[in-house]
């Protein structure tokens, strides 16, 4: 009895010691993202974006010191994401969560957010349904509906009447197909065929040839980044679809981290997206310059900007509400700010940012000699169009 009493008081002293030792006004933010494996680039870019924001704005918001703790979730792995989040909440006592690259990873932690009343800022995962799972989700990236629907409407306005959709057969691909088909048929266009390509496809020629045989005005595609996009765009060019006048319509395919590897085959590809590193604003140029100054090898793309704006949102919430989760969510709703990508508003209902969607075309920049996504048009202030679908 005496022993266990001593043990208890020792534990109590230890606890007291740690809580006294830690600064009373330090707010901890747990970042869950892949830092190893094939998707490690996301984690690296998230961390770089946070460091850029801290270099510009310091490490305090209001009265509070902000500290980031990084956890490696690997690839799409909901169980791992959930247990890391639990560890952050219980062991590290974090007040905010951030990061989350894949939809299943983000979805898996919804019950934890409700129990602990912790706001989570999604830096990437792009399915509309996530935010409906808990009041504590906020998103500073985009949703697939948010970019696919404006693209369909824009294409119709450009005189495109027939389209073949060809997406990779997995969750985000099907989401993008649904969004594009809904908006394009609504506008009055005709979808000739909807092809779903297996995730393991390496040779895209058969799909490209059957699109060519149907000779639509354009094709709409959604592919996972990296090798599949590389193979698809090569095949699109080599089989003469461009010469036949079949326009390429995509979204994230031409993102900056792999763009240079596509070579001249990428020139002329049209995409609708919320961020191009080529965006013409002083704020964007300053943002990229700062990132390059801190991380000379870094390529700024949508993952960087999602994390940068997410960090801004966390700073705003901390300043307004400290560690009070529900109050922080209230403070975030309706918040407006200027980002390197353009003006943003945190939509109070969907809790995804309302933002500009840009129509871009890949060009080779005359000055730098590099391939860039040059903005050709803008569809202003688009909200999450997939909400409730």
């Amino acid at each position: 009895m005496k022993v266990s009493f001593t043990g208890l008081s020792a534990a109590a002293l230890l606890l007291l010691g740690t809580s006294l030792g830690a600064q009373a006004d330090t707010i901890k933010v747990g970042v869950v993202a892949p830092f190893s494996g094939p998707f490690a680039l996301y984690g690296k870019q998230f961390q770089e974006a946070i460091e850029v924001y801290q270099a510009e704005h310091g490490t305090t918001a209001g009265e509070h010191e902000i500290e980031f703790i990084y956890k490696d979730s690997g690839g799409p792995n909901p169980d791992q994401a959930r247990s890391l989040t639990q560890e952050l909440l219980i062991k590290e006592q974090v007040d905010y969560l951030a990061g989350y690259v894949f939809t299943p990873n983000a979805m898996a932690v919804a019950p934890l957010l409700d129990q602990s009343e912790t706001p989570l800022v999604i830096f990437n995962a792009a399915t509309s349904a996530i935010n409906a799972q808990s009041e504590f989700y906020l998103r500073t990236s985009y949703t697939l509906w948010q970019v696919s629907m404006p693209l369909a409407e824009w294409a119709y306005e450009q005189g495109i009447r027939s389209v073949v959709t060809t997406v990779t057969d997995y969750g985000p691909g099907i989401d993008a197909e649904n969004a594009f088909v809904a908006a394009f048929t609504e506008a009055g266009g005709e979808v000739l065929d909807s092809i779903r390509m297996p995730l393991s496809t390496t040779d895209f020629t058969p799909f490209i040839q059957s699109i060519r045989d149907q000779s639509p005005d354009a094709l709409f595609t959604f592919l996972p980044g990296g090798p599949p996009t590389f193979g698809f765009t090569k095949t699109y060019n080599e089989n003469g679809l461009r010469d036949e006048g079949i326009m390429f319509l995509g979204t994230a395919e031409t993102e900056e981290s792999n763009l240079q590897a596509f070579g001249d085959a990428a020139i002329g590809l049209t995409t609708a997206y919320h961020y191009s590193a080529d965006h013409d604003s002083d704020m964007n140029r300053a943002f990229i310059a700062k990132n390059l100054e801190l991380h000379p090898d870094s390529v700024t793309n949508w993952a960087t900007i999602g994390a940068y704006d997410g960090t801004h949102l966390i700073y705003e919430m901390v300043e307004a509400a400290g560690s009070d989760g529900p109050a922080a969510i209230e403070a975030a709703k309706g918040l407006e700010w200027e980002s390197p990508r353009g003006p943003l508003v945190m939509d109070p209902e969907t809790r995804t940012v309302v933002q500009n969607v840009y129509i871009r075309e890949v060009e080779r920049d005359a000055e730098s000699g590099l391939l860039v996504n040059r903005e050709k048009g803008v569809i202003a202030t688009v909200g999450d169009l997939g909400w409730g679908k």
Partner: protein
Amino acid sequence: MSLILNILIDGVAYGMILFMISVGLSVTMGLMRVINLAHGGFAMLGGVVAHVLMSEAGVGYVPAALLGIAATVALAWPLERLIYRRIYGFGDLQQVLATIGLTFLMIATVNRLQGSTLLALPLPGGLAQSVDLGFRTLPLHRIVVIGVGVAVIIGLWLLIDRTRFGIRLRAAVDNRATAGAIGINTGLIYSATFCLGAGLAALGGILGAEMLPIEAYYPLRYMVLFLVVVAVGGMGSFAGSFAAALGLGLIETASRYLVPEYGTIFYFACIIVFLAVRPKGLWGRLA
């Protein structure tokens, strides 16, 4: 009619790429009987060296490819002497574990030095064109791959069946002790053959990069593709690998033209049925 022609042309072109990326494995795994899961690693290393030479030193495509292959062979030689020599004697599972470990080392090294994004091997202007076949076009580089594939299969057949080296090699893999006893330097034969396998892997990696782009996770991403070709072709048979690669290319292409929704299931169902009927593959020599 044009559909059948499309399937034939694309199937053969794809099959040749499958053959080129897996021929190195049919040397190391098929002929030397070491379960070499690091095959894709050698293919990647060849591609990475070529990429670095082209993008940072401005070397042309063909010299960069040749240097990439040479660098892979130069690395394979000490690797064979120091590590693979011990792996030959392992059991199957230990070989799998040892070579997958090597693969992880290669992936981590490339990831560390070059990052995880795509490493381009831009084709020279002449090769980047498409050839007009009248009713459709075909990229010129695929025709080049078909030509190189045919040259490689003929060259291997001559080497293994018609040269003194080939006779010694076949003797060494069939019965190493007896071959050694009659004065064949089996150690040297093994080293040379392993380097041949690694060099062919690098050649396949570089030539196939238009379809299977080089990046840090290349060895894992396409491992099933390589293994399937060698398994269906039969261990120890180049003709088997060649026929298997063409057959698999045709089956996959046909299924994607005709039943795109079920392409992957159809492809693997064919392989399962085939291996159930002929577990040794097309021309398997191993009991």
